[in-house]
């Protein structure tokens, strides 16, 4: 009966205070919602890569279909290694940008984000260029399917990462973010680091192993 009266009182109050908006939610974890959300999203992204690596494993190991070089066609390991360096260095500039935001150094934030974006774009351009000069289509055999599939999946993630970075960069140039409030840099940053680390696995399984 106590609960019933509370409920009734609640309904009455709601009418009066409706325009005030919701009560502030209790914070029941030290982890921030946006940070946690991005981590969980990355977990599911990892599993998507996992599905593609499973395909790779079945085709290369279980079906014993062999791996590059196939019929004299090999993967350009040297170019891809240089490209890896470009992508991995963008993680450093990303960190620099975030530190800039934390310290209130807007110039470092802006330049850091722009450099990161530029490095990511360079990586993507070289990757597309590599596709053009590889000399075998995606439909040649199962190995080329997996190669284009995995690198293409990663490339799509670079595009998503670049989109997020693009938003952060735009906002950084339009005066958003401060040492207290820079979640919009931090969260895309986590995603960008994930994209970079994922590339290490893609590169080493496809090109080196």
């Amino acid at each position: 009966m106590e609960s019933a009266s509370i409920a009734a009182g609640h309904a009455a109050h709601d009418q009066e205070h409706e325009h005030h908006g919701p009560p502030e939610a209790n914070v029941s974890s030290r982890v921030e919602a946006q940070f946690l959300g991005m981590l969980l999203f990355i977990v599911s992204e990892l599993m998507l890569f996992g599905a593609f690596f499973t395909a790779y494993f079945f085709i290369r190991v279980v079906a014993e279909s062999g791996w590059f070089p196939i019929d004299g066609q090999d993967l350009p390991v040297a170019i891809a290694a240089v490209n890896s360096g470009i992508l991995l260095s963008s993680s450093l500039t990303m960190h620099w940008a975030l530190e800039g935001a934390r310290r209130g150094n807007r110039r470092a934030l802006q330049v850091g984000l722009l450099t990161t974006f530029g490095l990511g774009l360079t990586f993507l351009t070289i990757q597309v260029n590599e596709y053009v000069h590889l000399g075998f289509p995606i439909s040649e055999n199962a190995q080329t399917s997996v190669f284009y599939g995995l690198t293409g999946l990663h490339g799509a993630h670079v595009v998503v990462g670049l989109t997020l970075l693009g938003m952060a960069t735009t906002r950084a140039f339009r005066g958003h973010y401060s040492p207290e409030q820079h979640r919009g840099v931090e969260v895309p940053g986590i995603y960008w680091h994930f994209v970079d680390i994922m590339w290490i696995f893609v590169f080493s399984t496809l090109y080196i192993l």
Partner: protein
Amino acid sequence: MTFAQRLTAPGWYRAALGTALMFAFGGALVVGVRALYGWDPLFNWDAIITVGALIAAPFGYLVGIGCFDYWFYWASGRPTRPEDHSGHGARSWKDYFRVNTDHKVIGIQYIVTTMFFFIAGGLMAMLMRAELAQPGTQFVDPNTFNGLFSVHASLMIFLFIIPVFAGIANFVIPLMIGAPDMAFPRLNALSFWMLPIAGVMMLASFFVEGGAFATGWTAYAPLSTETPLGQQFFTVGVQFAGASSIATALNFLVTIITMRAPGMTFWRMPLLVWANFTTSLLVVIATPFIAGSQFFVLLDRSLGTHFFTPGAGGDVLMYQHVFWFYSHPAVYIMMLPGFGIISEVISTNARKPVFGYRMMAFSLVAIVILGFTVWAHHMFVSGMFSWLRVPMMITTMLIAVPTGIKIFSWLATLWRGVIHLRTPMLFALGFITMFTLGGISGIMLAVVPFDIHVSDTYFIVAHIHYVLFGGSVFTIFAGIYHWFPKMTGRMYDETLGKLHFWLSFIFFNLTFGPMHLVGIDGMPRRVADYAEQYATWNAIISISAFIFGASFLIFLYNMIASWRHGPAAAANPWRAHSIEWQVSSPPPIFNFDEIPTVVGGPYEYGTPGAVHAVFKEKAPAQVPAPAGGGGAPPPTE
């Protein structure tokens, strides 16, 4: 509002415009590329439909309806607008047809939309039973029949059971944990609006050349890489359903972790919250695998890749491994939220605490972990590595242990309780018996030799319907009846509810029970015709199925009539302890004036004076609050 304004404001007009524009864009892209490379024919309609209608157009619709407006504004970097809550809460029925960020509105949107697909899938089942009422071909040709059972299963799984649980949880979970909304309300809205895309695609597949996808909901490669265009509608549709499902699950996890009311420790959470927490873990981890499997099929079909071409180095069985690595956990995605509902309903209606609360929670976690270790029991006859069979048999049997813990705990909860046989309770009890039967036939199927004997027979159909209808759908009915007063503010008709239960319970058994027998006798599933010897049983099954299907009309009438004219519901008609019952029915637009404080367990029935949560003293609240009191911005970005 002028027509031009309607085309630019978020809503259905702009959605239609966006869909058309993006379809034209996708089609032009295909034609442009083909012209550039000089391919013949220039207008390849399979490609135009795939790129234009299946991939591009849905994004036009999502942008048009208004899912991305806030994010576009945010990304452009313009000054932050103060939140005016205009997109939150339903003030008229029209608000249910707009992008709305209120979890209660989204919950009802989910439930009503999924009911529509439930009806569509159910009608297909009726048509199949009509065809199977006697041997020979009566109503549909075999290819249409294959399309019917494929679309039936896909709709029931991806468009009904999985999302309707998300709908119920959407409505209830934030209230239960004392949160004003979900953690990411706009993502929540996007999740909902992605869902109908999948359903519309699956239904639309009937109208393309070659008919609906006819490879079953499992869409095994390489069959699915060689079938007509309809298959593409499944392959792409599942991606949207999956993305919707992952986004919702992520939202639940973040909400449950970061937004619980003060005092709500993990061990004070109602078991429905636990159930959705564990389900969401499964969704986030497993669902990308079905996305992967369908990406491979899509690539094989559209770009001529060779993931599943043995002659070119591909591996056919890889499809089944990847697919079942999602789809076995998916059966727990379709069951664990139901377990949560049953715990709420049984303890409330037996007026007793849930027996073994901690073990109930631990067994959910155990099911999540074990659920990832059993996938290959679907593949005993596939020709996979034979050494994998026995380990999979053992893990499959092991998973019955945590499930058994739950069954016995519910029985112990009932033991010497004061049992109120209301409709939700009847469905809960029906669930326990039916799910136990389905579980036992599951154990039988785990045994390799028995599985080989009944593979692809009606025994499988019987098993799946005992766990998914007698299991999941009964819990859905229990949940909808249980929270109907909270959702609508009105009471449903108890007599009609009981009639619905008894009719569906009896005719469910008469429909699916005999399928065990004809299955063991060897009647193959997924075939439009059958041998003379199964005729009697099939006639009985079909007649029962029609009455079983008709019993759903009672439910539908009860829901619609009660929603419009039912007597007003009290805030707490079941005298339940969890927080959602401590606010008015329907709840206030922002759930709470102030967040409650949790002071005890959720099921302390039978303890005089026990409460789960208290609201702060009324005195300060009655003093006129200063302007802007409680006006904190919602936890959104």
